[in-house]
């Protein structure tokens, strides 16, 4: 599975890097990018990234501690919508979002399992 990971520079990106360093990644290919805030992500960007990969993993501040107040919530609502559109159209690609602080990678691991379809 080829996965693109986007993290906000406050918490998501440091957490993604740590996850990348710490262990073996469960995907064939992972590319990690950073941006100032997940609030910038639009449905269009998500779809276009999915044109060149199998899944998108977003990592950002927890919903009630986003450093821009509503950045994580904004993208979370968009992710829900994109996933339901993908499901409706029977496209086997997925977007998932992990709410992390810069030190915690547990959430990213959990979300990776989700993307692989191995959720408990």
């Amino acid at each position, binding site marked *: 599975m080829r996965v693109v990971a986007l993290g906000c520079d406050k918490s998501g990106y440091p957490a993604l890097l740590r996850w990348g360093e710490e262990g073996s990644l469960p995907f064939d290919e992972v590319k990690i990018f950073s941006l100032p805030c997940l609030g910038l992500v639009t449905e269009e960007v998500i779809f276009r990234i999915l044109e060149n990969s199998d899944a998108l993993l977003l990592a950002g501040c927890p919903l009630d501690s986003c450093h821009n107040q*509503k950045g994580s*919530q*904004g993208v979370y*609502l*968009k992710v*829900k*919508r994109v996933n339901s559109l993908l499901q409706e159209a029977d496209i086997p690609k997925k977007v998932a979002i992990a709410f992390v602080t810069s030190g915690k990678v547990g959430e990213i691991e959990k979300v990776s399992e989700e993307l692989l379809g191995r959720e408990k």
Partner: protein
Amino acid sequence: MIIAERKPIKEILSFLGPGEKILVLGCGTCVTVCMSGGEKEARELSSLLRLKGWETKDLTVERQCEPEFNLRAREEIAKVDAIVSLACGVGVQALAECFPEKKIFPGLNTTFMGMPKEQGLWEERCWGCGNCIVHLFGYVCPVTRCAKSLLNGPCGGSKNGKCEVKPDRDCAWQLIYDRLKKENRLEVLYALQPPRDWSTSRYGGQRKMIREDVRL
């Protein structure tokens, strides 16, 4: 867009009490385009009311259906006794929700959703039934444009392509037939339309639309 027409002047005048200070509030979107309630019409009506002896001012906001725009007029509204709103029915109600203690009168009769056929002529095209099937009828909506909203063929009373109920209107089924004939798709009319589920339509109280993904 939403089409509305100005109420008869006598009716508007009957709303207003003597000596009241009036504000005529225009709306800058749909009713401007169909020339019933925009800035021009607001000024016109305002002058007319002054000629009849009322102290009147006019103001036009971008859209009366948005509280943010209505609230920008709060200072002017505070100064008057009554408002004549030249917005469509939506705008009048939105305005009333923003100013719960003010006297507001609708200056327009909101009629339909339609398009300009030519400059100065607007025709209804959509009824808001909530379940669009125009593609099954050669893109002519039988719900809206047939006076009887028939879905399975003409009533048979049309004369020279004009409707028997409203002789100056085209028979919708004539239009449907003409279009499908031109496209060589008449066979779609063989599909029988079952009794329609009107629950998506305007019966049963107000409808709403929700987009959870923008409700931050």
